[in-house]
């Protein structure tokens, strides 16, 4: 390879590492034991150091209690971490018999470092707060939003693209101008309004305001305009109704843009945070992002559990991304071409 290409790939790899290292570290920290993290084991490998007693026959985990010149007193533990007392020679120097303390030669005590994967952290984190409920809430909300966005978007875009009526341009540009208003601006009055409508702290507050996406209307309108007029004429001659044309001809021809709209709607809804944080109060209605946020406050010192929770909360979208990379990236790219 020529040196310039090598430089290019080197830069791309470095930047790629910067992009993925947080995720890799999240994963490796998620499977560490909290004890190791607190001891200062920060690197990527989930290593664990343990002291063991080993002779020709057996091997136990050990904890050194007291050391002498060439021997020491230890607790021995079995696999589950319980103290065991089966070993012979449990007499201390003073001649007393103490069951838990054992004198063993120094040479039989070793430190072993090995990789230990605490997958149980995922289960612990998942059950510590009702994450199953949070997932369910998020799924209910995001699926409702996606269905709503696609239906309202397709209907409105069909009218804007293929029908003539008084005020069409005005209404369309009015919609577009509403898109310019940033969310924090209507957050507070929406709260007042939803409170007045009795929707605060219900699913409705999370779903209704989002079942129309103006950008989706815009995107679908562009697409519907590209459907050739001949198809409409032919269908009209065959006696196809206006809705029939949308359903049987326009939508099947617009699958890719519909997928784009659904993807935007789903990712946006799945990841939205400030809105559900403000509009819901009861723990049973927490969506994943809000639940995760509360969990991060409650378990702020439990790094491993936090990382485990972060991992399984981003997993669904990562899997979606893995299977639909091309579609997702080109969807986002198309959002920039004519914004």
């Amino acid at each position, binding site marked *: 390879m020529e040196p310039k290409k090598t430089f290019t790939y080197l830069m791309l790899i470095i930047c790629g590492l910067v992009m993925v290292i947080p995720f890799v570290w999240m994963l490796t920290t998620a499977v560490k034991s909290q004890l190791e993290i607190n001891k200062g084991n*920060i690197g990527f490998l989930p290593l664990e150091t343990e002291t063991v007693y080993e002779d020709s026959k057996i091997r136990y985990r050990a904890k050194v209690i007291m050391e002498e010149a060439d021997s020491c007193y230890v607790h021995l533990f079995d696999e589950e971490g319980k103290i065991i007392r089966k070993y012979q020679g449990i007499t201390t120097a003073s001649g007393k018999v103490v069951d838990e303390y054992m004198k063993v030669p120094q040479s039989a005590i070793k430190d072993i470092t090995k990789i230990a994967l605490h997958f149980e952290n995922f289960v612990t984190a998942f059950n510590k707060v009702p994450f199953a409920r949070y997932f369910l809430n998020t799924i209910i909300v995001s699926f409702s939003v996606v269905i709503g966005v696609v239906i309202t978007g397709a*209907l409105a875009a069909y009218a804007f693209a293929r029908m003539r009526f008084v005020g069409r341009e005005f209404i369309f540009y009015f919609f577009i101008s509403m898109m310019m208003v940033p969310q924090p601006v209507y957050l507070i009055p929406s709260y007042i309004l939803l409170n007045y409508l009795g929707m605060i702290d219900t699913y409705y507050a999370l779903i209704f305001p989002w079942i129309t996406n103006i950008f989706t209307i815009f995107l679908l309108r562009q697409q519907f305009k590209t459907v050739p007029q001949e198809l409409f004429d032919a269908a009209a001659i065959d006696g196809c109704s206006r809705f029939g044309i949308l359903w049987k001809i326009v939508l099947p021809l617009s699958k890719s843009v519909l997928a784009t709209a659904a993807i935007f709607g789903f990712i946006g809804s799945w*990841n939205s945070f*400030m809105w559900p944080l403000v509009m819901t109060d009861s723990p049973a209605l927490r969506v994943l992002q809000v639940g995760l946020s509360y969990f991060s406050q409650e378990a702020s010192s439990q790094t491993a559990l936090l990382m485990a929770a972060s991992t399984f909360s981003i997993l669904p979208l990562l899997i979606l991304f893995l299977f639909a990379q091309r579609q997702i990236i080109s969807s*986002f790219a198309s959002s920039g071409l004519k914004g």
Partner: protein
Amino acid sequence: MVKKKLDFGPYLYILPAAVIIFLFRLIPIILSFVVSFFEWSITGVGKFIGIANYVQVLHDAEFWQSMLNTFYLVIFVVPIGLILALFFANLLNSIEKLKSFFRSVYFIPTVTSMVAISIVWKIMFNQQTGLINYFLGKIGIEPLGWLAESRGVFDLLLGSFGINFSSWIQSLSELVNIGYNTLYMILGGPSLALFSIIIVTIWKNLGYNTIIYLAGLQNIPEVYYEAARIDGANKFKQFFKITIPLISPTTYYVLMMTTITTFQVFSQIYLMTGPPIGGPLGTTKVIVYYLFDKGFGESNDLSYASAIALVLFAIILILTLLQRKLEKKVHY
């Protein structure tokens, strides 16, 4: 074919979308003006107070600090983010092998939730158990305070060269008769804590901006570059004389999007800073968090929060118009 006199059909098709937009966009916006002119709490409407809220905003030191912090966020995130994105889009555009692989890798943060990202980065920035100080330690740099550090980055930078920044500010403060804290906030730059937020925000945006730039680059016809090569222009010249001018519509779009979204940063602040959120010493309090806190925090002052929201809206609107003017100048 006989035409009906009045066809309500089209309006029925628009109706669902129109109802939602009317109810949950237009009415709230009108309502927010109304609310900002009245005393208002969750119990209901109070007395008319006119522009009192807006007058109070102007005299609110916390508001100005939040504005300054937001401003810092924007002026660091936008240019750095743009330059990095253009750089990586160019690198991606110049390779064939593994192109889509790298593209996907850069894109992962874009589809990931800001909440999870904030949690991970907060732990990465941790002074004792964070990955960043661990890396710095490996190359022999002393651990930094990151999210816990309220001192400005310019102060820290000059300090590392042995310059006593605060004594400068002290003497300047006496000279121009402006309070020490105010001067320090402005001249010290964003706190290291805010700078940590800046890093995360750039990182999160980078993939999206790169993809947008890449799409823009692929739209530049290859013939321009061929002509330039024939004329003997080197890569450097090609980049500045062809790429930069022809990519300017994309630059305009990315600039506008990044500016607007950076003005609305909330989740990072809410999850990564504090306690109290916005700390240390309020150096990471941004405008959207401030209005959230005013509206739904202890004071529960929805009226004042609405006024702040509208000021934010005005600022974003003015910036959009200014950038549109700029666009006319740079559009080819």
